[in-house]
Each structure stands twice: as structure tokens, then as C-alpha cells.
């Protein structure tokens, strides 16, 4: 389970400073790249030879990119696919993305997540608990903003997470299920390069209408703890069954 801390305390101090509204709301476009030969090399039941063979054979096809977007305001954020349809590179063929919407309400400390995974559509409604971040000493430029590095750990999936947050966009939002840093997270590295989510551009504009879910979401209800147990059990079962535990990272 992720370590949690009450979120409200942090938020109080955040609002001691008012920033110009235009820098505090907008849409971030991300490129989500999955390196599945790296992901396969994590499987404990594959031999070194089998992992090498996957690496050697598919090294030219690695790096599958999906476009995502994050709408953010100082109070809320919404993260989902940029469009409902996925498309091949040449635009010839498109297919449906499985449902994936992550909505966060920082003011009320609530979260709503819709995820189609493991054969069902789940609705997770729970209170907001920020991950345990460690802030490091590196800075780099992403999409024109200087960002600082922070790391945390996902104990359910057993992964190391690296996030780069923008120093000049003081919104605690971020892609995937990560948030709670002093700035907007513009790059997320899941498990040491297995999946890389990088912001390509940021559009500052008013998104207060779109950052909330349009209609009441449908799905099997789960709490945060229930979701973690679902994923944890699946990974354990899959590894025991020598079946690759492929779930969305």
C-alpha cells in the first residue's frame, strides 16, 4: 500500500500565495511510451535466454506511444486519453481505448477513477491520499519548463517511480495516479524506464467545465484498498501461473 498523508495541510500553505489565474489552469498533452521488451524482462519466470531472445527479435518495434491529456485547475484535475480512439501511425486503422479516466478533487480531497481492466470496468471513489515523495537534486527542462526530480515507490506493483515537477506551475496535479508535488508533474517514469510519460505541450486556458466528469460514471464500485488488493492478487496469481501479469502500468 502506498503511504499516505493528509492532503489538506499541504494545500493550506499552497494557497498563501495567489498566482495569476492563467498559469494555474489548462491542458497538458503527454506522450505515453511503453517499452514492452523492458517490461517482459521483468518476468521472473522467463529464463535469461528467453528474455534476451525477446529483446533481440523485437528491439526495432519497441516503444509504443499513446497520447494522453491532463486537464488541470488549482482545485481539480482530469487525466485520460487524448481521444477515445487509438490510431496506427499512418492513421489507417483505429480502435477503441479501454476506459481510463482519473479525476481528482484537491479541494474536497476526493478522487474518482474509472478503469477498464482485468475484464471489468471499475469505479474507484475514495479520499485523496498522496504518495510518499522524496525530492532529489536534479533539474531538467521538459516542454519549456524547468522541473525538479522526485521519487516514490509503488508497493503494490513493486515499482520505482520518478517524477519531474514544474517549478513554475504550482498545481499539485500529475498524470496516471500520481500527484501531490509542489508543481505540475510533466514527466513520469514508471519502473526505471519501462513506461515513460512526457509532456509535449501545455495549453493554458480555462477548463473548469471539462475537468469534472460529464455524467455519472458506471462501474463496479471499489475503494482504493480494494483496487490495490485486486491488482496485487492478480500479479501474484499470474506469476504463480507463469502467465505474464500484463496490466496497465
Amino acid at each position, binding site marked *: 500500500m502506498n503511504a499516505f498523508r493528509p492532503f489538506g495541510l*499541504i494545500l*493550506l*500553505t*499552497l494557497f*498563501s*500565495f495567489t*498566482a495569476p489565474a492563467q498559469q494555474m489552469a489548462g491542458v497538458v498533452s503527454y506522450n505515453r511510451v511503453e517499452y514492452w521488451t523492458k517490461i517482459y524482462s521483468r518476468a521472473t519466470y522467463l*529464463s*535469461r*535466454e528467453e528474455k*534476451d*531472445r525477446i529483446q*533481440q*527479435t*523485437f*528491439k*526495432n518495434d519497441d516503444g509504443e506511444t499513446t497520447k494522453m491529456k491532463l486537464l488541470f485547475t488549482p482545485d481539480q484535475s482530469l487525466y485520460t486519453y487524448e481521444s*477515445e*480512439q487509438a*490510431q496506427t501511425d*499512418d*492513421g*489507417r*486503422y*483505429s*480502435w*477503441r481505448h*479501454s*476506459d481510463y479516466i482519473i479525476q481528482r478533487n484537491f479541494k474536497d480531497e476526493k478522487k474518482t477513477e474509472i478503469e*477498464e481492466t*482485468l*475484464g*471489468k*470496468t471499475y469505479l474507484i471513489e475514495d479520499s485523496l491520499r498522496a504518495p*510518499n*515523495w*522524496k*525530492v532529489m*537534486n*536534479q*533539474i*531538467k*527542462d521538459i516542454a*519549456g*519548463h*524547468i522541473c525538479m*526530480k522526485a521519487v516514490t515507490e509503488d508497493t503494490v506493483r513493486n515499482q520505482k517511480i520518478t517524477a519531474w515537477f514544474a*517549478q*513554475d506551475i*504550482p498545481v499539485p496535479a500529475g498524470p496516471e495516479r500520481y500527484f501531490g*508535488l*509542489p*508543481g505540475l508533474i510533466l514527466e513520469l517514469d514508471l519502473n526505471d524506464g519501462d513506461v515513460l510519460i512526457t509532456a509535449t505541450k501545455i495549453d493554458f486556458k480555462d477548463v473548469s467545465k471539462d475537468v469534472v466528469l460529464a455524467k455519472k460514471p458506471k462501474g463496479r464500485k471499489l475503494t482504493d484498498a480494494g483496487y490495490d488488493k485486486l491488482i496485487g492478487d*492478480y500479479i501474484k*496469481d499470474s506469476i504463480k*501461473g*507463469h*502467465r505474464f501479469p*500484463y*496490466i496497465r502500468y
Partner: protein
Amino acid sequence: MRNFLVVLLLLAASRMAVAQQSPRITVRGTVVDTANAVLPGATVMLLTPKDSALVSFGRTDDKGIFQLKGMRRAPYILKVSYVGYLPLQKDVAPDNGDVTDMGPLQIKPIQKELLEVVVRTAKAPLSIRGDTIEYNANSFKVPPGSTVEELLRKLPGMQVDGDGNIRAQGQEVKKVLVDGKAFFGSDPKLATKNLPAEAISKVQVFNDKSEQSKITGVDDGKKEKAVNLELKESHRKGGFGKVTAGAGPDSRKQMRSMVRGNYNRFSQKEQFSVIGLGNNLNQNGLSWNDYQDFRGSQSFNWQDDGNFGFSNGGVFFFGDGDENSLTVPISNGVTNQGFSKNYAGGGNYNYDTKKTKISSSYFYNRADQNFDTRTDQETFLPNFTYQRQENSRRYVWNNNHRATLRLEQNFDSLNTLIVVANARFNNGNEQFGSNQDFFQDDSVRVSRTGINNQSSSTTFQLASTAIYRHKFRKKGRNFAASLGYNVTNADGSANQQSVNEFYRDTTLAGTLLPPININQDVISSSLRTELKSSLFYTEPISKKVVWETFYNFSIRNDKVDRDYYDRTSDVARVRNDSLSRYYTNDFFYNRVGSSLRYNNKGFNISGGLAALWFNQSGRFAGDQTATRFTTVNRDYFTLVPNASVTYDMKNNRYLYGGYSVDIRQPSTRDLQPVVDNSNPRYIQQGNPTLLPQLTKNVNIGFNSFNPASFTQIYFGASYGWILNQIVYNQLVDPLLVTRTTPVNINGGSTFNTYVGFGFPLKKTKATINFNTYYGYNKNPLYINSELNQTNSNNYNFGVRLDLTPSDKFTFYPNANWSVTDTRYSVNTTQNQRIYNFRYGADMNVKLPFNMYFNGNLNYQIYKNPRFGFNQHLPILNLAVYKLFLKENKGEIRLSAYDVFNKNQGITQQAYQNFVQTSQVQTLARYFTLSFTYNMRGLKSQMRR
């Protein structure tokens, strides 16, 4: 006592003092720059000193002041960051008060050049440790082969003069260290001029002497600028290989042996591999694992097909000269009949970068095959029945050289060119000898034919394609063009000898036919060339609709020259004009088609139409010098519609269906008006007027898979009907010579439906799968010019169990029951029901001392009560193996194949008007002891 009281009082007083200290404090301060101007909007963070965990954060207000309230009373690290400035870290040690005031915190700006060039332009991350700045040399592009000096020239704040003297931030650099150690003495130029830039991962510039001595452990004693270069871990490169060798006796006391090995060397961009094998175990191809190790990143290329458009049945078969494929053969584990010796070897080279990929490979294989066959056949004709018994021996030697070349060039993100060429050179020999005895009605021998044939051939085959793809700026608008050139050149020479003796008069002519001796030479040469081209264009009509158009063109020329010579004596021969043939054929093929595709919310529907037209003009005569040729000239036109629907219902459920028309061109062999009389009792002749076979098919299917519960379910149905079905019309004359020729016939149809589902009995320990299948086939057929309708119904049911209770034992049993009911409209006496039962199991046991046991059983039962067939074929393979050496690099294995010695190569078949049993002498039971060495370590094969 008094002292005690004093102590108590003091204790109480101090207690009270502590009690007055609140458990929560406020940390505050002001952030200023080097000119002491306040900085509003700076981010301030409180971290735990132990592991830098983020506890709280805030921002400075308009006056540059920050306040973090409600913090637990404990020591912290305060971190201040502001865009354009070096982050500041300072320890917070809370005093007794409720507020810990840090005072003014001065932050220094990052050197402008550093920010602009390193961070913004080169996108390299900067690491800041106190006053040390580190940046990643990887993001600086220097030409390959550059030295560190050239790399340093590019770094901001660094100046390198003509002599190689380095100045960092204006100060002279007196020391260049590599991984913290002095490199060849104290002259910095030695490192910078001799190390390649590619080996460097980080460049550290020290501003502070204290940092420098702390990290490098070298006490300089002076304030000097120093540069430390950290080297990269050696590039990902290496090599691996594996070799297996084994031998053992078979049931005839002959030695069976095999050897197989491969070796691979690779680096980031290149892969080089070699492979070799030799065996007399009937295994002629590579396993899929060996194939992937051999071809590496070029194992699967999905975009290399230059035939654009749906329903590509317009593509001609190529290379039906001999049965060898154009690409590296892959054996799927099925052992072939007869006995064969196989040798193969090859090398493969791949060069892969993002822009350019080059690959070339060479593969040689040789197979020596030996077939010793006995056949018993009974044929039912409208007026009589006859039997045939044959004993034959066939030796085949084949040498194949294969070469592949592939180039893929990405000029930019919008333009790609792929050029692929596959070539094969083959030469082979065959020797065939047989004795056939014919009996009619009352098992009295009517005639006999003895055959003795020799042939040799060489074939050269080339298939090459070039594909150019262009993506326009508008997403979804694409263009592709392809050009292909294929050549097959085959030359053969054969000598056909047969003696045909007649003992009974079956022609009712009243006299007995004298023996017919045939001694013929057949010299043949054929040349097929094809030039083809395709164009393809897609245009996005809207966000949900895509429009595709394609055009295929091909022009092909066939030339076949077959000269028959009757041998009159050992040296003289006369040309046989009636059998000789010279034949040329030109195909001119065009196809244009278009389709629309609609995509929305998982619903994908497409519909299209193609128009196909070809012109075939051929002519044939006995010889190229003939004055009169028979010509074949026809135009063929047809419309080919196509529709498909796929529906991605959420949660891993898919529904799909469609309608398609598949066009199968007659094979060149079927079209050629040449006579094949290599078996004088079974003469085959081609038909140049054959039309292509059109199969119209409609299908629907559904599948669903739940990964969490490991359950799956699928079902589907498909119906097809055939126009111009190509069937072989057989005519048996009173001399019991069968002549067969392909003809088109209408009216065949086929239908099948299947259901399958699987679920775990106990998750990860036991899973069960069921599948059922029903299909029927309706086929029209000519039997001695009489039209017959064959109806066959097939019912099939199967079960499979995957039992994996522990890491020490796995068991995979399966069973399949199939019943086929065949009915003939005219020859109702031939109606039959065939039962095919198959039981199989795979078992793996882990034994102590790193030993493993594997058993594999495949038990087939074949019953045809109508003709008294009842075959039981249990094929059992057992193996015991031990892994040893460090990291399990070695394996020693004792195996037994076909323990019950049942692989006797017996097949029994019943067709429309005949029943046949044949037996090929085949490799049956044998044992081997083999040893494997694998550089990367071996793994037990407990799980599938």
C-alpha cells in the same frame, strides 16, 4: 532530602518548560536573490533529513515570505527552488520556540549559458549537489570518433584553446580526472585528447575545493578548477551460443545422431549469428527459437508485402517447381516419413539504427531422403472393381542455397523505403523404382508395370520487392507504391523407363496385348518472369471515416519447353512429337479497388469493391519450330466485394464478422498443357482453359477473455460456396490406366461452426478447456465422367486439462473425438463413417539432484468399420535430463522416441471411389544420449 527536593523542583520546572513547548512548530523565512531582492512565488519544501521525504511544501508570497505551519517538532531539510536559480538546501534545527525563523535565504542564479544550452537546448538534466553541477554528456552530439576535448568545447562555460588548454567559467582547469582518478599523470590534455567522447557519461565541474576533495578523495590543497569525467558502463554488447550433440541406436541397430549449434555476437547496432545442424533424425528445419536466434531483429517483418488491397488471391503461386520454400525452413516438430539425413548451416548479419536497417543472410541445407513404400489400393468403378499393389523405392537428394538481402531506410518521419530480395538456388536428384501389380475382380493378376526413373534438376528462384511509403502532413493521408520482380528458372532432365506386361485381356478385344516398353528421356526447361506493381492511397474523410484505394498490376510470362525422346537403343533416340510440348503464356493482370472504413467507439465497419481483369494469351505446340500453334486467349473479369465488421465490446469481448471473396488461381502445373507420364499407369495432363476458383465466404465470430479469472469463451460460424471449383477429373480406361486432368465445376459448399470455453478449476493449479466443432462439405466430383455429389459431415469434441499443482510436477492431458460421415450420391456402397480418436498427455516431474523427467504420449486410434480399418498408434516419447555446470549451462539427456515402436508409417484413406492402405518405412523407435552446452544457461521445461 533537600537535594532530592531541589532535584524534584528542577525536574518539575523543566517539565513545565517543556510542556509549554507545543508539539507543532511553524517554519518561516524570506527568499532573496544575490542582490537581496525578494523572490515571490519561490517553492519551499520541507524534507526529512534521513531520506529527503517530502513532508510539506509552500510558496513565498509577494514579499518573498513563506510560512509552513503545523509542522511536527523535528529536524528537517529546507529546500528552496526558483526557476533560473540553483536550488538551496539548508538544515532546519527547531529551537524551543513555536516559530523557527530561517531568516533571509539567499539563492544564486544558474549561469545563463548553462541553463540555455544544457538544460533548454540539449534537454540534459542537471544534477546539483551543493555547489557542484553535473550534466550528462550523452545529450551533446559530437561526431563519432570525437575526443573528450571536442566534447568539452561544446559545453557552456568551458573554453578549450588551440593547444587543448581548458578554462571552465574563466578559470584555468589544471586537473582532469577520470572516474575520480588521475589519468596518466597531471596533464589534463592527456585525458581530453585520448578518451573518446562516447565513453563519457557525466562531466563534473568543481567550483568548490571542499566538494572536490570530498568526492574524489584527492586533497588538492589549492583552489583549482577541476573536471571529473565519469565513464559509461561498457556498451551493451556480448555474445552467446549453444551447442547440442547426441547419438543413439534405433530399433534396427543403426546409429542415429544429431548435432546442432549456434553462436551470436551483438552490440547496440549490430547482430551477427551463425547456425549449423546435421542429423539423421528426419529433422530438416530450425525450431522457432533457433530461427529467432538466427535472424534476430529481422525474424518478423510485417510491412514487407507489396501486394496492397484486400483479398489478394490474385497473387500467383510462385515456385511450384520443387517443394522447397524460398525462405529458411522451419520444422514444427513433426517428424517426416521415411528416413532422411539433413545438413544445414548459415550466417546472418543485421545492422539496425533508427534511420537505416540492413540485413543479409545466407542459409544452406541439404536433405537426403529415402522412402520405401508399399501400397494396397482398391478402386470402385461403375462397371467393375480392380486392385493395385505397389512396392516402390524413392531416393531424393536436394541441395538448397538461400540468400536474403533487406534494406529499410527512413529518410525522415514521413518517407520510408524497403527493398527486399530473396534468392534460392537448388539442385536435386531423384531416383524412383517401383513394381505395380493390377488385379481385377477375382484376384487374378491382370497386368504389371515396373518403373525405373531417374531425374535431376536445377532451379533458380528470385523474389524481390521495393516498397515506398509516404505519409502526408495530414494524419491519415498516406501513399504507398511497390514494385516487384520475380524469376524462376528451372531446368531438368529425366530418364523414364517402364515395362508394362499384360496377362489378361481386359479390353474385350479378343487378343492379349504385347508388353509395352517405354524408355524416354525428358528434357525440360521453364522460365517464369513476373513484373508487378501496386499503388495504395488512403484519405481520411472525417475523424471516423477513412477511404482506401488500391491498384495492382502484374505482367507475367511463362515459357515451358518439354522435349520427349524415345530411346531406340543405348545411344540413339527419336523425338516424340506427340508428347513434346513448347508452351508460352502471357498474363496481363489488373485490379482496382476501393473501400471505406468507419471507426467509432470500438465499432469498426468496412466495405469495399474491387474489379479484377486479366488477359491470358498462350500458345503451345509440339516444339518451338512448329508452324501451327494451338492458342489460348481469354479475358477474365470479375467483381470482388468485401465487407467486415469488428466490434470491441468493452471488457475484452470482441464480436466480428465479414464477407469476402477469395480467388485462387490455378497452379502453373495445372494450367500447362503438358503430359506427365512418369507413371505410365497414372497420367496427368494440365488444362490451359482453367478458370480461377472463387470461394465466397461469410463468417461471424465472438471471443471473450477475462485475465483476472483466467476464463475464456469463443464461438464462430462460417459458410462458403465455391464457383469454378478446380477438381481432378479421373478417367480409367479398360487397360486400367488412369488419366487425370483438372476441370472447373460449380456447386461446392462448406459450412462449419465451433464453440470453445475454458476456465480454471483451481486458479493457477488447474485449468480446463472444452471445444466442439461441426462442419459439413458438399463437393461435386466426376468419377469416370459420372457426376457424383459427396457430402461429408464432421463432428468433433475435445477436452484439454492443464494441471500445474506445484513447481515439481505438471501434467497436461488432452483428448479429442472426431467422427466423419461421408456419403456419395452415386457410389452409395462407398458410404462410410470414420472414427478418429486422439489421446495425448505431457508430463514433467522435477527430481532431486537437478534432474527432470519428461514424458509425452500421443495415442491415435483410427477406425473405418466399412473397410475393416482399425489402427492403434501410441507414440510415446520419454526423456530424463540433468542440468549441471555453473548457472545450469550444461545439460545431459537420455531420450527414447516412440517407445512402443509403433511409428510404422501406415496411412489408410478412403476417397470417392477408392480405398487405400500404404506403409512407408519410417524412423521408429530410437534412443539418444545427448549433451547440450548453453552460454546463457539452460532452463527446465516444466511449463509449456
